């Protein structure tokens, strides 16, 4: 555990927790502007969280501890990921956990907790959301792991710090076909994992189309605040991961205030750019039917498989 890792382990979660609602606000604002609306402002998600935290906690009848602890598990998994993944510094606070497989599996664990909570309510909505979410997760997982495989073969390790450092030292790899194919595959997967258009519409409450919102329909007050915060954090974490796997420049490699500041600004900037791009793209996209989503994921799976093939034949 190096000093750099410890500093990163403290700065990163603070940055992600504070910044992720702002990212969601920024994306909503961009969308509103592009659609010709005024928009509520970038700070609105934080104001919503403050309001929710002040509300009375509820316990819907017929739900159990599984329902009540799921938001906690969801935030905790995302928080661990925020600590260990190299966002601001190349070293990781808990290096043996900063494994790409472990990170992906941790994020899946959060989704599973939420799906169980949805089933636990015993309502049709909860079951529907859980069923759809697990279907998407089951299909996303292969693409995600094969894309990881493509990225880690050239480094010879699945350790995130190793992958990021290797890209830093050898910038030419970024424009290789392997990286490009894997990047496209990962973008599709991240859109699916974070429940954005065209896979899921985060602003819908129509029973025919809800996925994530159906699972969390019974949450209110502080519980809902946790779930909303965790969703925002997941989005930031995934976008930050995408940014630093392919474009890690700016990340701090030494413990100096200047380097840390540049690292923090760089990751905020990269995530903001990606978020704005995603929000702008969403304006032009309609939600896919649930049973068309597998075709999209199959396409991205093919790309990731091509990436692995390329990594062998071009090596």
């Amino acid at each position, binding site marked *: 555990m190096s000093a750099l890792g410890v500093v990163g382990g403290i700065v990163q979660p603070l940055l992600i927790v504070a910044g992720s609602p702002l990212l969601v606000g920024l994306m909503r604002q961009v969308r509103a502007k592009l659609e010709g609306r005024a928009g509520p402002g970038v700070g609105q998600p934080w104001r919503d969280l403050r309001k929710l935290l002040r509300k009375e906690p509820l316990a819907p009848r017929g739900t159990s501890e599984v329902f009540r602890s799921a938001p906690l598990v969801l935030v905790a*998994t995302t*928080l661990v990921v925020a600590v260990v993944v190299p966002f601001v510094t190349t070293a990781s606070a808990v290096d043996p*956990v900063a494994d790409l497989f472990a990170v992906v*599996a941790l994020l899946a664990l959060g989704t599973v907790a939420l799906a169980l909570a949805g089933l636990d309510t015993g309502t049709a909505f909860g079951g529907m959301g859980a069923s759809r979410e697990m279907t998407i997760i089951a299909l996303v997982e292969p693409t995600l792991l*094969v894309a990881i495989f493509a990225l880690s073969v050239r480094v010879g390790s699945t350790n995130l710090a190793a992958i990021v450092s290797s890209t830093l030292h050898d910038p030419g790899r970024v424009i290789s076909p392997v990286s490009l194919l894997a990047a496209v595959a990962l973008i599709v997967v991240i859109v699916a994992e974070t429940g954005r258009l065209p896979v899921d519409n985060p602003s819908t409450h129509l029973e025919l189309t809800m996925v994530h919102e159906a699972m969390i329909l019974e949450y209110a007050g502080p519980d809902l605040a946790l779930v909303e915060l965790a969703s925002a954090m997941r989005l930031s974490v995934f976008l930050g991961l995408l940014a630093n796997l392919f474009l890690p420049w700016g990340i701090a490699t030494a413990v100096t205030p200047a380097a840390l500041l540049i690292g923090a600004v760089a990751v905020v900037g990269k995530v903001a750019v990606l978020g704005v791009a995603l929000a702008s793209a969403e304006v032009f996209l309609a939600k896919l039917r649930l049973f068309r989503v597998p075709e999209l994921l199959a396409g991205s799976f093919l790309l990731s498989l091509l990436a692995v*093939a390329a990594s062998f034949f071009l090596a």
Partner: protein
Amino acid sequence: MTLAAVGLGVAVAVGALTGLAAVVVPVRGRSTVVGIGTAVTGVAGLVAGVAALGGQTFTLVLPGVLPLAGVRFTLDPLGGLFLAVTAGVAVAAGTYGISYARHGLDARPVQAVFPLFVVAMLLVPAADSVGTFLLCWELMALASLLLVLAEHRRRPEVASAGRWYAVMTHLGLIAILIGLLVLTAHATNDSFAALRNAAPHMPSGVRDVVFVLTLAGFASKAGIVPLHAWLPRAHPEAPSHVSALMSAAMVNLGVYGVARVGFDLLGGGPRWWWLLVLALGALSAVYGILQAVINTDLKRLLGYSTTENLGLVFLGVGAAGLFASSGQHVLAAVALAAALLHVVGHAAFKTLLFLAAGSVLHATGTRDLDALGGLRAGMPVTTGLFGLGALAASALPPGTAFVSEWLLLQALIHGLPASGAATAIVMPVTVAAVALTAGLAVATFVKAFGVGFLAKPRSTAAARAHESPVSMLAGMGLAGCACVAVALAPAVALPSIGHAAQAALGDGAPGVSGAVTLRLTGIVGSLSPVLLAGSLLAAALVVAALLRAVAVRRERRAARLWDCGAGPLSARMEYTATSFAEPLQRVFDNVVQPETDVDVTHHEESRYLVAAVAYRHRVPDRIERRLYQPILTAVAVWGQAGRRLATGSVHRYLGYGFYTLLGLLIVLAVTR
């Protein structure tokens, strides 16, 4: 006398005595005696297995027991690992059986065979000659068959399951028998040492035949596709503690067989052997979990999940063989260690899951997930333990299967740059298969746990469910502790597993080291399951503390669920296991090919009025239908044709005998 010898001796003696005692003791105390006896057998076996893993060894030759060849036993680390796993499962299953067997399973034959089944399974990995091995193997098969049939009077499906099992296990035995006899024919005697010496000098064609035949036999015992057809029938129909023994311990011996014959006796082989093993493993993993995710019968689902997990193990064994055949011994050791660790982890969580399923069956009388739900209120401990098992099975951190699948993926990743074009094509596809399996396993166990134990009860039986007796909870608790231990501290078991892998591969690469953090030696890779679980816990505590500081502090108020303003929700409005899996079933429609029949009965007066609608939905096992149905039909046709020869006339039968003898004499006269 080493500890290993004493342990195995005590295990066999106690097991045999327990079998005898079951016949003598009156029905009231019988299940207690048998349960405790089996658990003691297991403890003794565990001691022997651990001692053998630590390097102790012994050889026992009893020339007089079997005619011609005699009986030979020995223990090495590879056998010791499988012995320890089997014994561990027996401890949990025996403890569980004390109360579980009181409900209609305390007849003499069933109770007497149960400990003998355990003894036979303990002896298989200790056998040191072909004759001994086959004898123990067949004893194990027969004992398990009798146990599968325990409830045949109550449920007619049991008889059909028993027939499938009897036929397939014996076809498997024949394949192994022929394979090992061909091998023995080239050696001086039937001891494994002699086979080891003879194997390098055998023609490669004969080696191929031996490997393929034994692989077929062992794969059918392990429930590997396409020889799995018996497994999802026999495992659910057996009493649950027997299911646990079969699904967590007996199937492993198929893996043992492949490792023993492929690596140890034949000393490795050409690349295509291992590609075959790997392909079978990948196919089984994906197909097994696909069937499991769609199935709504809790025990059948677990049976298919066994096929999936053993598929992953075969995949690891195949990868290890592939690496060994191209000279990458470090990677081979890692892959085999991953496979063996998965055997250990799978034994722990599958025991727990089958025992918990048995408790559910005991409390509600049904295994149908569509009729369960809401069990967390009536049986909180069982619910918690099943949840632990489900987490362990779904390859999520901090679960049991996560560590072994991580190791397996590490081996596959590092295998890609190292060797030729065949590996370059195989490795990504294999990783994709492992990944798809992992994703579907998550969905499967969310379904099993979420639909079966959470939500509202879907039947009156589920609403009236009650917690199991103490000994059943203790049995499950033991298995649960094993799950937690393997999940958090695999490093404790890994050096021993490394010894077993070394014993199999026959070289000195340790593969994995480190107490808290697993570090792969020779290749880059490290993971710390303990730190992962610890940081998760710490993060949860931090979040909870912050929430207490920031959020308003008030008691939770009970509130109505959102029912669209239409009055209270009933259990009929819930998602069932079938509806939960429907999207996935639709996605994999081309693979699983479900059958749906809708019969509409009209009123007599008018075609426009509907009297009744019957809806039937079934997901048949497609491989079974495509592969087995034609064979069964052909056999039936052949049998029908044969009946024309057997009319019942004695004169005719005498005539057959006479002409056969005549024909034989003529053939002999012409050829001599």
